[in-house]
């Protein structure tokens, strides 16, 4: 099974990178852009056939290492 984990700073946490990118996009003329957030994607293969078990496993990985839930939220995709 393939797992994709998307990690972003939580909505309440100032994303300075996102803000800088947003300003740069405005500078290039895309004035309608708002709310840019810069995050990261972590992909890996998982030796698991059971979807529910895989979901629980990846969630545990996120809570323990892949995200810092004090400042970040995450979303898991399994395929």
């Amino acid at each position: 099974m393939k797992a994709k984990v998307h990690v972003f700073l939580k909505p309440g946490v100032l994303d300075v990178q996102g803000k800088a990118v947003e300003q740069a996009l405005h500078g290039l003329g895309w004035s309608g852009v708002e709310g840019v957030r810069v995050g990261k994607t972590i992909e890996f293969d998982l030796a698991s056939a059971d979807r529910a078990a895989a979901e629980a496993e990846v969630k545990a990985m996120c809570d323990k290492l892949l995200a810092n839930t004090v400042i970040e939220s995450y979303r898991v995709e399994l395929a």
Partner: protein
Amino acid sequence: MTTSLPGSGRFNFGTTRFERDMKAAVIVFPGSNCDRDCKVAVERSTGAQVEMVWHGDTALPQGLDLIVLPGGFSYGDYLRCGAMAALSPVMAEVKAAAERGVATVGICNGFQVLCEAGLLPGALLQNERLKYVCKPVTLEITNAQTRFTSGYGGRREAVMTVGNGEGNYFADEATLDRLEGEGQVVFRYRDNPNGSARDIAGIVNARGNVLGMMPHPDRAFEAELGSADGAVLFQSALASA
């Protein structure tokens, strides 16, 4: 390796004399770059014997009075600053020692590691203005009653330097209120260089034996370095051990 330095062994400062030879450890992660600075700073300011402990070690030296997590870029700041170091083998021992009450100081990257390891609340975000900040800062000694600041006496300010790109302290409002209410905010910036919440530069845990701070006392232990205010911190930590 041991280095013989003037004043090693028993040490006198102010009216306090250590009753025995003191022992400290500096944890060395791959990518630490202030580990030697910390060793020399602790040796010269307190006379303690300082051992370097590799991150892969599974035991700490016996009888430690102080553990220092140095600054740098442990594990290349991969994933998040301090995230990988927090999981390195030696950190289980550091956690156990901290739980036994051993004085533990995390400086700069060491502060990030302590937060990632769950020994201190909150996290360090990228600096508000996206800039690596490297300069002397004036700190308010917000709580002079901690075991790390008792030596400052009636002084209200200390000067040290910061050098960080991710030194912007963040915690939710309830945590910040608790830290302030319980006297866990130890240092504040007079002129906030990185956007830290409530100007926080350093905090202690609830028990008061784990200190995390972004400014470098290890770069301020002799007047020749621009300030000797950092020496007082190491002296206080050992005087209270």
